């Protein structure tokens, strides 16, 4: 009768979450994806200007399993998926936890367009009715999903063009405040083709070298997944890592070594594509929750 009622109240969401995870596993296993587990505590993550890892001794907790997943791809594993915990320092909000659950999947001999198809098939498998109700609005999953370039999205929704926003360093602010709330309304949106400086691990578009084959999936204004056609050129990857690491240090962040084993094995990576999907946020959408706290057993403040 007494007990922790706030915790007991989450039971329907936790039951839904368990069913969602089971459906996701079945979806990938049926398509001959190999489920893997890679270490969560690693020597170093890929350098990211705006993602900070949590230290664990002299190593770090992973901010994403991407480096190990791509080393597996490079060793000849063609289709992989993983559901795992990742950690990001200082991220806490209505849709952010410093420790959260990531679903990543990778395909060799594929590009980011194939991952768009995967996203559509996966979410439709999770919502057999094809219609998602989110805070009174209806999202039609059955119709073709919108594919909108970042430049077109800024032209349609932002006070500045993409080039202007980048020039005055207001890209993230405008994306968050003006653009994101308009995406994925009515039907999901793939926001695609990011400026190459915002896609450190992605391949450039063949006909537009200033843009990278990267997309983010939005449903009802919520960012669900980030994907790209993988960069397979070790020299170019090394150059981009050095650029980002230098930018990190310029911001006063702790110097980090580069992931040398990953760079060394990158030359064996076949043309491939990979995606990271925030599982907690998918559960928010599928259960009608409004915050990430409602779909996990224990937010950190309750530990």
């Amino acid at each position, binding site marked *: 009768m007494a007990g922790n009622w706030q915790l007991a109240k989450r039971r329907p969401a936790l039951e839904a979450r368990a069913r969602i995870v089971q459906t996701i596993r079945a979806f990938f296993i049926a398509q001959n994806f190999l489920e893997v587990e890679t270490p969560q505590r690693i020597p170093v993550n890929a350098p990211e200007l*705006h993602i900070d890892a949590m230290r664990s001794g002299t190593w770090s907790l992973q901010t994403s399993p991407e480096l190990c997943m791509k080393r597996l791809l490079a060793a000849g594993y063609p289709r992989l998926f993983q559901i795992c915990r990742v950690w990001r320092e200082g991220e806490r909000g209505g849709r952010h936890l410093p420790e959260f659950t990531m679903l990543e999947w990778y395909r060799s001999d594929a590009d980011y367009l194939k991952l768009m198809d995967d996203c559509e098939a996966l979410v439709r498998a999770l919502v057999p009715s094809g219609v998602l109700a989110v805070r009174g609005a209806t999202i039609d999953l059955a119709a073709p999903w919108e594919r909108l370039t970042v430049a077109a999205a800024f032209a349609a929704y932002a006070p500045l063009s993409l080039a202007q926003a980048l020039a005055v360093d207001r890209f993230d602010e405008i994306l968050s*405040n003006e653009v*994101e709330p308009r995406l994925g309304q009515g039907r999901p949106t793939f926001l695609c083709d990011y400026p190459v400086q915002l896609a450190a691990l992605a391949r450039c578009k063949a006909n537009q070298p200033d843009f990278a084959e990267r997309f983010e999936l939005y449903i009802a204004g919520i960012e669900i997944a980030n994907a790209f056609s993988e960069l397979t050129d070790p020299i170019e990857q090394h150059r981009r890592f050095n650029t980002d690491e230098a930018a990190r240090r310029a911001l006063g962040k702790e110097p980090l070594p580069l992931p040398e084993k990953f760079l060394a094995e990158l030359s064996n990576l076949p043309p491939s594509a990979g995606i990271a999907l925030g599982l907690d946020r998918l559960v928010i959408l599928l259960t009608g929750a409004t915050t990430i706290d409602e779909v996990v057993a224990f937010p950190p403040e309750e530990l």
Partner: protein
Amino acid sequence: MYSCSDLKKGLKLLIDGEPHIIAGFDFAKPGKGQAIYKCKLRNMITGSLFDRSYRSGDSFEPAQLEDVRMQYLYQDEAGYVFMDNKTFEQIYLSEATLGDDKLFLRDNMEVEILMFNGRAIGITLPNFVNLRVERSDPWVKGDTAAGNSKPATVEGGYTLSVPPFVEEGDVIQIDTRSGEYVTRVKE
């Protein structure tokens, strides 16, 4: 000085020389981009609400407010009356100044009055208040153990979600910071 990582609901900042309280807070991070700290700010003098976004590197001056312990007496046409039990000085606060805090006020409750440059601009409630449930429908579905919930309205008119076993006439403890049910209080 505060940095962005200090921002949270309830923090009081000095902006353009006036005290502001963060009435709503969220953290956003588009894609792999930089963190955006989205604040809904209330000017504690004028009561006006507005949105403002900050980003890493921004810093903030704390609002220096003085707390004076007073007792809530009653409400009349002019507003809500509080008294300093040491000096017997009485002050009025308007409904707009109190905002949602008025929902949890009970006669004779002791609160902290927030003073800015000698002027009362708000109150700090105790973290927990006990209020009597005035309206809540009986639970009819049988199962009362599995984390179900139902609405209840407490004295003063605030409505919140409570466990099924809470009945009209019960006294419940509410966390005034979150507005959420904590426990049933045995009297």
